[in-house]
């Protein structure tokens, strides 16, 4: 064996400045995770391109005048609901000298006043007032022909579905339904089923990894059975669960659907052998965490949707949340994690959701492991000698219930390569 994989001075160390995509689709190049110019290209081709960018939930801005800070790609925006109840998304940057004027996580207002010179904008982003516009004692002020309507805040097109709010810079954008495609839209609607939601809170964290790795992670059924012993041990997800991994026809969106087995998981000896971390013996002192109150009309007790580019939506037993990925350069992203219930939850149901959320979140049993694994992964691609990663498992035409597969990852990168116009 010795002599294999021998590193030699001329073994494959790709010059990350020449960005030619590997011909073998099971190979994924390092430089899409670490290169600054690739990141800048993503801004034009993806976040400002023909895509719907998730910006928030209606329950975060439920009343007229409500607003939150949010992002489209890396760009700070404000999501507002105006007096008429209409939603707006516009840049958080004053048209005058450029101040990022809104610094609050959330609030209620009837206008935004920039702190520097008090230029004032309404909840649609229109410039409505300029102090001393006519000057003082007839001296100074704005030009006679200055038209405030030319200097509003640049706004995005907005669409909502099932209480989820999207924004795009694309003028002739298709509907969210078309954007998601029938397979994913069906699952999307199963979770966002038209009932009214209640905000329970936000988790915020910075992950030292590329934003795409998080989408990969949630398109990867393979890791769940291996990294997340907690899940497997309690049968929330094991290889023997009934599962399905649909994608839309472009490959950019995906779903990770699973049906929880009742009682102890049935894991074959052979599979246990593959799961070095498998623990038969663990029992919960407080099993309430795992109780499951059926609340949606779906056969799937677990549904993880990855909506390109920056939304993930989770429904796991009674946990409901969305995650917004905010890129901060190639090596880092911020995650805003919105956890919610339903307006008609009683106190006990609310407490149940809060207890159950212990499993997820940045201090949850899965959150810790995924965030750590992605940190290690970025460390690898950032620090090691360049090498192509592998996404070799499964086949592109396999039945969608196949779980030992990286089909969805390959699919996303097929779309990515295409929209990024990599040769």
């Amino acid at each position, binding site marked *: 064996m010795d002599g294999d994989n021998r590193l030699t001075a001329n073994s494959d160390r790709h010059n990350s400045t020449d960005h030619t995509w590997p011909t073998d689709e099971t190979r994924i190049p390092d430089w899409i995770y670490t290169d600054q110019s690739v990141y800048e290209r993503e801004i034009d081709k993806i976040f400002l391109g023909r895509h719907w960018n998730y910006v928030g939930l209606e329950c975060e801005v439920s009343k007229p005048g409500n607003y939150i800070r949010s992002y489209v790609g890396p760009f700070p925006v404000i999501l507002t609901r105006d007096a008429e109840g209409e939603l707006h998304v516009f840049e958080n940057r004053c048209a005058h000298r450029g101040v990022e004027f809104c610094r609050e996580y959330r609030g209620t207002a009837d206008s935004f006043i920039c702190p520097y010179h008090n230029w004032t904008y309404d909840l649609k982003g229109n410039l409505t007032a300029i102090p001393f516009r006519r000057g003082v004692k007839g001296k100074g002020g704005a030009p006679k022909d200055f038209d405030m309507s030319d200097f509003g805040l640049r706004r995005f097109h907005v669409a909502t579905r099932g209480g989820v709010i999207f924004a795009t810079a694309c003028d002739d954008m298709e509907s969210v339904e078309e954007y998601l495609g029938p397979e994913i839209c069906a699952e999307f609607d199963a979770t966002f089923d038209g009932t009214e939601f209640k*905000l329970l809170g936000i988790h915020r964290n910075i992950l030292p990894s590329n934003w795409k790795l998080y989408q990969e992670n949630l398109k990867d059924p393979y890791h769940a059975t291996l990294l997340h012993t907690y899940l497997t041990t309690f049968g929330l997800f094991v290889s023997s669960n009934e599962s399905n991994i649909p994608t839309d026809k472009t490959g950019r969106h995906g779903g990770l659907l699973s049906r929880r087995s009742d009682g102890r998981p049935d894991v074959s000896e052979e599979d246990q052998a593959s799961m070095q971390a498998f623990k038969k013996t663990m029992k919960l002192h*407080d099993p309430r*965490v795992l109780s499951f109150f059926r609340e949606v009309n779906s056969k799937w007790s677990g549904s993880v949707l990855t909506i390109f580019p920056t939304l993930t939506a989770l429904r796991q037993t009674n946990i409901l949340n969305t995650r917004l990925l905010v890129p901060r350069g190639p090596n880092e992203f911020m995650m805003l994690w919105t956890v919610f219930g339903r307006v008609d939850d009683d106190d006990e149901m609310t407490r149940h959701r809060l207890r159950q959320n*212990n499993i997820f*979140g940045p201090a949850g049993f899965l959150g*810790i492991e995924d965030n750590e694994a992605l940190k290690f992964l970025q460390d690898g691609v950032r620090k090691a000698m360049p090498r192509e990663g592998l996404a070799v498992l499964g086949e592109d035409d396999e039945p969608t219930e196949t779980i030992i597969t990286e089909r969805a990852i390959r699919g996303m990168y097929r779309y990515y390569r295409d929209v990024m116009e990599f040769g």
Partner: protein
Amino acid sequence: MMATAIQDKKAALLEARMEIEEFNYAYAETLDAMDVDRWVEYFTDDAFYHVIARDNAESGLPLGLIYCEGKAMMKDRAYALLNTEMFAPRYLHLSITNTRALSIDGKELTAAANYTLIETLVEETSRIQQVGKYRDVFIRDNGKLLLKERICTYDSVMIDNCLVFPV
């Protein structure tokens, strides 16, 4: 109150503060050792342990980063951390300062303190992982203090990757 009564109250609160400091310093050392099995023993069976971001708390949003109703949930967390969780090796340094005893009512004590968790990862320098405040309810259980409630409200709402151990 009469002057002496005030004096007595002050003395009692001071004594309580001393005792709570002893408690908090032992508590911190237990967590620095990642001995979460023993950590659980600082609480009553029906204790409520809540780690909540300051922005959520101030907006009246109940979501907890950690939310444990009763010791049983804490035990499950302790077990998971020690037996199922994958995370990078780290050193923890939890300092508890500004301990205050706020009130004494029979067996029940309310108190507050500041905490600072400094985390050190492999080949990295030490950094602040989280700062926050404890709001505590202690009860005295034959001579020994136990936490009936510890609400940890943290300023560091933008979490650096993840929080592995309780604070």
